[in-house]
């Protein structure tokens, strides 16, 4: 491969300074985060009473957000591990996008759990007094493990790129140069280093799959091990994992489109990538739809008295607009868009991905809240506010702030590091040329 071609790839993929739009975007996200932080300070000083959560709905949009973050983080294992192990080389430009989405999502999944606690200063008690029998402890263990695996999976393939970044001292500032040196100055691209790194990535790719399955299965068990209408299901683990892969893939398509458009990466994130990711998304949406049919049709067919109110609330009652919105936007409309070749072009695929992400957030809300409002025992002598749940502005601000925080991590990462692996792209281009 000619040096000029390598030079071109490298220059194309080097991190770029924020333009006007980039700065506005970062500023917007920071404002959302600050508002969320102010709301959290209010919650800390006044207690959880500032939220709409009461005796019945004790898990509101914070836990919906938690489940959403855990779900979206699974994309790291889908793109990086599953596609890498199946030798799907086309996925190389997407691996880092997927990994940074996974790391940022899992970081905020951990934070949002602490936000949900009335007394976060007592968080350490979970470790001191936690019971191994409790799914909550399993969740804590598996989230921590998944975070470290995702971090390593992000870091190992980054090492060769750090060496490339260090070569472009004139294009970077002092602080970033220091950061690159600190993280990767020891990488000399020797055959031994490459061998160790490849082996490490392979080990991580294998390890992350069962851990990823565990993380979301355990999250589903937080609900399924509780005997309540809507949660009492043996299907929940698979239902959650299929939904998680769907939202993760949707998020990657959204991120692909945005990075492609703003960093001029059309040569690297091509129509073919949208086409393939579109097909994956259709398959995952169909799979998730299948699990949804199972999850709702079977209980609706039996219509047990104790579950009737909950189910009818979803189908035709109080939650029907949100329920059908989620089903349509997270599954049906994306399937209809992406099933045709034209629909898998960048813009329609981006719209479909966005619909999946938005619909999936509301789907998590529907998993958590309606069940809590339909206990087996009737609500007696309770204030009216206990019987309904609509988040307060503090809850919205914190939830939106956490989503903005996750996006901010991805944005800042793309500013500092190459969002498409430079070294791997060069190697693969060389291989293709040889073939």
């Amino acid at each position: 491969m000619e040096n000029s071609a390598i030079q071109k790839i490298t220059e194309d993929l080097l991190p770029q300074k924020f333009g006007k739009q980039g700065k506005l975007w970062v500023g917007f996200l920071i404002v959302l985060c600050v508002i969320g932080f102010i709301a959290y300070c209010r919650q800390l000083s006044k207690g959880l009473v500032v939220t709409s959560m009461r005796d019945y709905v004790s898990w509101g949009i914070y836990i919906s957000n938690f489940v959403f973050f855990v779900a979206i983080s699974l994309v790291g294992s889908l793109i990086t591990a599953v596609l890498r192990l199946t030798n799907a080389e086309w996925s190389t430009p997407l691996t880092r996008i997927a990994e940074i989405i996974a790391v940022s999502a899992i970081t905020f999944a951990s934070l949002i759990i602490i936000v949900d606690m009335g007394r976060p200063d007592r968080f350490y008690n979970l470790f001191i007094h936690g019971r191994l029998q409790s799914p909550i402890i399993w969740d804590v263990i598996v989230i921590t493990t998944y975070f470290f695996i995702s971090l390593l999976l992000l870091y190992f393939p980054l090492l060769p790129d750090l060496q490339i970044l260090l070569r472009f001292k004139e294009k970077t500032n002092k602080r970033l140069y220091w950061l690159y040196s600190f993280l990767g100055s020891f990488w000399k691209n020797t055959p031994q280093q490459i061998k160790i790194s490849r082996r490490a990535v392979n080990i991580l790719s294998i390890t992350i799959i069962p851990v990823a399955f565990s993380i979301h299965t355990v999250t589903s068990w937080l609900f399924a091990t509780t005997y309540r209408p809507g949660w009492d299901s043996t299907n929940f683990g698979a239902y959650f994992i299929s939904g998680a892969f769907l939202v993760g893939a949707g998020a990657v398509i959204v991120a692909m489109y945005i990075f492609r458009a703003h960093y001029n990466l059309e040569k690297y994130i091509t129509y073919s990538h949208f086409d393939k990711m579109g097909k994956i998304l259709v398959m995952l949406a169909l799979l998730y739809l299948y699990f949804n049919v199972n999850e709702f049709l079977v209980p609706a067919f039996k219509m047990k008295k104790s579950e009737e109110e909950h189910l009818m609330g979803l189908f035709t009652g109080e939650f029907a607009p949100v329920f059908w919105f989620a089903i349509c936007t997270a599954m049906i409309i994306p399937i209809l868009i992406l099933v045709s070749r034209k629909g898998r072009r960048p813009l329609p695929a981006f719209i479909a991905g966005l619909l999946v992400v938005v619909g999936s957030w509301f789907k998590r809300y529907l998993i958590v809240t309606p069940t809590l409002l339909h206990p087996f025992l009737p609500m007696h002598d309770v204030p009216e506010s206990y019987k309904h749940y609509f988040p307060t502005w503090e809850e919205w601000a914190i939830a939106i702030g956490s989503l903005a925080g996750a996006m901010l991590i991805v944005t800042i990462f793309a500013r500092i590091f190459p969002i498409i692996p430079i070294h791997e792209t060069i190697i693969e281009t060389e291989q293709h040329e040889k073939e």
Partner: protein
Amino acid sequence: MKRNNYLSIAIVLLSLIRFNAIAQNASKNDLLLSVSYFNNNNQTQYLVAHTKCKIDGKFQLVPNVDVSFYITNDSAASNFLGKATTNEKGEATLLIPPAAKSEWIKSPKQNFEVVSKASNLYDETKANTPISKAKLKIETSDDKKITVTVLEQKDTAWTVVKGVDLKVAIKRLDGDLNVNETQTFTTDSTGTIAADFKRDSLPGDAQGNLTLIAKVEDNDNYGNLTVEKTVPWGNKFEYSTNYDRRTLFARRGHSPIWLELLAYSIIVAVWIILIYLIGQLRKIKRLGVQ
């Protein structure tokens, strides 16, 4: 005009007073009072007064009624045994005090009287119960046969009594359990009943002891009599608790071994891999520095 006003007010007030008076008389119910005699285990003798009244066609228990107890029919101060107040079950209990001994031993037959004084709600009411002094004797044999004898005091001697109904049971926490399928036994000409113990494998105390109880209930002549005896016919009770068992619902540090093995082996395996990979990272660093 003014005089007319005063007159009207006076008429209204008088009519109200009259109404109240009528209302008060109308609310006085007949108090139904009765008294029972108990002789437990031939040791403790006591009296229980019961109060109830009929309200809206239904009998209601009457609490908070002061009742005075007397020995003999004469409610003279010298025969006064004591006072008690009925509880929410309409029962007032009084142990026969040692001070009544001289009166008690005068005759093998006694009469007890209870008096509730007149109040705003009830008129004075009296009730009495005559009793003949009697006692039960219980004996057991090794082949788990139970013999109970009813004895009545005649002059100074105790004589057996024929035709008295009694129950033989085992004392349990929530009530008495018959020793066999026979509900009630009747004493024969020797004043005795014989019952076979047919409740094998019944949990007893730590030594396997059970308490047998024979009882005569609401007998017209003798009142309520009981006698108890402890027998080693039960199974030894061994206290067991789930508190220290390793279960999925146990406290911290008491999870099932299989769960601990499974969970810790997974955690250790995954973290060994992660630590190994961090070691590989250090190796990469070393190679780069060389």
